[in-house]
């Protein structure tokens, strides 16, 4: 049994596990203590000081988020001294803060604003320091806007980028009154190692880090009668969107989302799931081809393990940090970009629409997808393949703007073509999902049989552990794949870039030997993406993940190669996986980038 400690908070006895903080103990009692720098996913900072409480026998107040609960402690969370101190702290933050809430993207969704409102701050107690500050706004990145005038210096972003993502694009610069959150040499975000993952954005308590929005652009396109505006929705949006529209975490809103998009005025409501299935066809085939060339032909130019390439945060990370491994990346574009390239070719052709009039919008759980859409390589259709990538959050804003009552709107289906999905595609949204979907298909291609797991659920690759390994023994293969007979296919899955870094280091040192590695840039995979509803916690990500697997279980078709629209496109347009047309439209290459 773990050690427990007993303490008293506001007169109530409570026992908690040793190592828990006073804040944790208060939570057990449902006593709310305000916090700003604290975040469940991150190490303790203890720098905002808004969570202070009184401890009997101690002269100064203590920061409850940083103070370990100790035997016999007597804590008061609601005294005159505490209230005054907290109010002072919030007043001080506001005095440094450009609090033009009505012009702020985080208005009504801001932790600082919530606190100010809770404390009923009307007339400022202190003097305004903003005029003397030389605050800057960095809005040059296609993904992320950093507005220092909204920053409360809680360092959540710094800790996120360092601890969860091993990128450290953001750090603390200067000291005293000039202390600020900065990039290397204060270069703009687009010009540093930032992966655009948006993990800092979903942990920033204020409007200091937000996604670059394309709401006006999308509305303008919708209202333009000469444009044919199509929209694709990523797997992980359908289990998270509801959170921004008043629903519980883990609500599945696929039908409501499709209905709302149609109501917003999109001309065709389509599904990234379709191209996720297509990704499996291409990537699965690529894996098998690589294995053949490596194992049978002993071709030294073929790189194994192969890494997945669906996550643009991961792509930029590897481009900066491990460029020597770029040839190990699958050449497959992400599902968003496969969809984009096909929208202005295949879709346009089939529907008889001039591709120059198509505006292609994607709804993504991701901020890095904005950057990805803008990459110069992503114009294989002859146009920018995806015009605007917007986040789950931005879609929620549009739905509110349009006056749609999301709770009551009846379910509708996606349009066709490129709207058909499978369970295999849905699970792309959770860490391990691409691996599972790929195995479901590749195993069957090679052996002619379904993967030998109950109900197709490959539980070994599921879960929240940072790095997971699984191996599948391939037996009784079809004659064409005889070289794989008896091979133990070794796979690994990592989510969050710190875990990716761990796997890469192990591979680099020769300590790990895999054939296929799935990496997702964000903790939990896309369910925890930087474009998802705020807040994010382990519990919320788990609920979203559970919803993803429920959605998979409920699907009629659960294997990518059985998606009828996928079969159709190979027949009518692409020919075969890795064929000439696929190469032209669905595959790409990567760029080495500098390390700072």
């Amino acid at each position, binding site marked *: 049994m773990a050690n427990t400690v007993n303490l008293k908070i506001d007169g109530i006895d409570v026992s908690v596990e040793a190592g828990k903080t006073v804040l944790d103990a208060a939570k057990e009692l449902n006593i709310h203590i305000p916090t700003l720098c604290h975040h469940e996913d991150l190490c303790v900072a203890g*720098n905002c000081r808004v969570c202070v409480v009184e401890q009997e026998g101690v002269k100064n107040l203590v920061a409850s988020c940083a103070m370990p609960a100790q035997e016999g402690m007597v804590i008061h969370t609601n005294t005159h001294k505490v209230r005054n101190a907290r109010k002072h702290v919030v007043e001080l933050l506001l005095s440094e803060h450009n609090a033009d809430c009505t012009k702020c993207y985080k208005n009504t969704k801001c932790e600082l604003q919530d606190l100010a409102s809770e404390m009923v701050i009307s007339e400022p107690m202190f003097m305004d320091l903003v005029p003397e500050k030389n605050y800057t706004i960095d809005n040059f990145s296609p993904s992320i806007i950093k507005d220092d005038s909204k920053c409360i210096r809680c360092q959540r972003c710094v800790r996120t980028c360092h601890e969860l993502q091993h990128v450290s694009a953001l750090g603390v610069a200067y000291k005293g009154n000039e202390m600020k959150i900065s990039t290397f040499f204060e270069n703009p975000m687009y010009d540093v190692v930032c992966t655009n993952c948006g993990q800092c954005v979903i942990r920033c308590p204020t409007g200091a880090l937000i996604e670059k929005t394309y709401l006006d652009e999308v509305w303008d396109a919708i209202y333009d009668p000469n444009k044919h505006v199509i929209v694709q929705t990523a797997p992980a949006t359908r289990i998270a969107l509801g959170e921004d529209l008043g629903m519980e975490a883990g609500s599945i809103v696929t039908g409501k989302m499709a209905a709302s998009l149609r109501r917003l005025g999109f001309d065709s409501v389509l599904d990234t799931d379709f191209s996720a299935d297509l990704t499996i066809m291409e990537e699965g085939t690529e894996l098998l081809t690589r294995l053949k060339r490596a194992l049978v032909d002993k071709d030294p130019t073929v790189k194994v393990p192969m890494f997945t390439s669906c996550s643009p945060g991961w792509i930029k990370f590897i481009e900066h940090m491990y460029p020597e491994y770029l040839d190990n990346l699958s050449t497959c574009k992400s599902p968003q970009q496969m969809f984009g390239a096909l929208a202005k070719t295949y879709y346009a052709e089939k529907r008889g629409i001039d591709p120059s009039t198509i505006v292609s919008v994607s709804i993504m759980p991701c901020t890095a997808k904005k950057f990805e859409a803008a990459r110069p390589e992503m114009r294989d259709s002859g146009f920018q393949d995806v015009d605007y990538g917007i986040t789950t959050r931005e879609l929620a804003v549009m739905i509110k703007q349009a006056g749609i009552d999301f709770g009551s709107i009846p379910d509708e289906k996606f349009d066709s073509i490129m709207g058909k999905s499978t369970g295999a595609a849905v699970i792309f949204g959770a860490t391990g999902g691409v691996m599972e979907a790929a195995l479901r298909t590749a195993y069957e291609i090679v052996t002619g049989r379904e993967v030998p797991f109950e109900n197709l659920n490959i539980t070994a690759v599921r879960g929240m552990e940072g790095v997971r390994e699984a191996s599948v023994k391939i037996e009784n293969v079809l004659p064409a794949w005889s070289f794989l007979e008896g091979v133990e296919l070794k796979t690994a899955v990592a989510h969050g870039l710190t875990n990716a870094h761990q796997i890469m280091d192990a591979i680099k040192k020769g300590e790990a030997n895999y054939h296929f590695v799935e990496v997702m840039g964000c903790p939990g995979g896309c369910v925890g993406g930087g474009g998802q509803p705020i807040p994010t916690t382990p519990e919320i990500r788990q609920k979203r993940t559970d919803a993803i697997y429920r959605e998979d279980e409920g699907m009629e078709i659960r294997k990518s190669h059985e998606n009828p629209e996928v079969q159709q496109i190979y027949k009518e347009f692409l020919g075969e996986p890795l064929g000439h047309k696929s190469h032209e439209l669905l595959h790409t290459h990567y760029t080495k980038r500098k390390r700072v």
Partner: protein
Amino acid sequence: MPDKKLKRVDLIFSDDCNCKDVLAAGLKKSNEEILKEILDSGLRGRGGAGFPTGLKWKFTSQEASEEKYVVCNADEGEPGTFKDREILTRVPMKVFGGMAICGKVIGAKHGYVYLRGEYQFLRADLEKVLEEFHANIKAEGFDFQIHILMGSGAYICGEESALFESMEGKRGEPRNKPPYPTIAGFRSKPTVINNVETLVYAFMITRIGADKFQELGTADSRGSKVFSISGDTPIAGIYELELGMSLEDFVEEFGDGDTKAVQVGGASGFCVPRKKFKDTIIGFEGVPTGGSMMLFNSSRSMYNVLKNYVQFFEEESCGQCTPCRVGCQQLIKGIEAVKKGEKSITYLNTLQKLADTMKVTSKCGLGQSVANSFSSIVDNFKEEMIY
């Protein structure tokens, strides 16, 4: 009422002892014996906070870690102190001796001197003495290495946990406490961190014994202390004095006949006005000091003195925590506004309350001590703040 008279002492700089022999004798004693001596002596830290040195050593000695450290805090950044520089220049062997004895007691094999960046010029000489020291210690069969690390000019790096961060190559930001250094200090290992002067006293106590040290000072403030005396005094400099004297005695000795206030303990200390000299004891029971004593005569503007201090904190704050980072800016802007008449006199009360909040909510000693000088100057020289 102070009952001690001003008395000069000569323990720190005295050259009537052979450091090599004192060290050898010290290392021959048992750990219990040394700990008892340091505890009995009543020695308290000379770096400012005044924590009992014996207890610090004892706690660290009780930790069951293979890896422990002794760190000598030679960052000396408090405005108005320059005594550690003098000690390191004149008696470095005593400092190293104190570290070695501490290392023996707690079970550390490595000691570090964290030397203020501006003291780079001392380094070559210190390294030379270190060579000799390492030879001595080897002769005693004791495995202990001292290394010198340079600070980089930030006042906050004198705060012990920020100092460890800096030693570990990170940004010098104070950590949350607990855990305290005795449990998790440098590299998160049990660490004793002591001021330069504390280490020398500890070393000297192993020579003269606890009783002799006890004879000096008062119940709360045993022994003597090195003072850095500056400002409006004809005899600025370094003096070792017995603790417990009254400020009146002190001013009598060091003042220029027109002293209107003494800032005891540097920018983070307290300002005592003339009318309180008589009743103010210099020591932990009265006004404690890390050694800095600044005298001001009637030609000085206390408004300027205060502004200078707060500006110092505003710049030297690491900036991580709200009360200190923003509080300092508000205090400056506030007193300026009152002075210019843009804010009413009552705004000073608001500022005093803010200073009180900074004291109880700031993460480290820097922010916690801004109120010391702020409130003591504003309280005692209110008219100078306004007119």
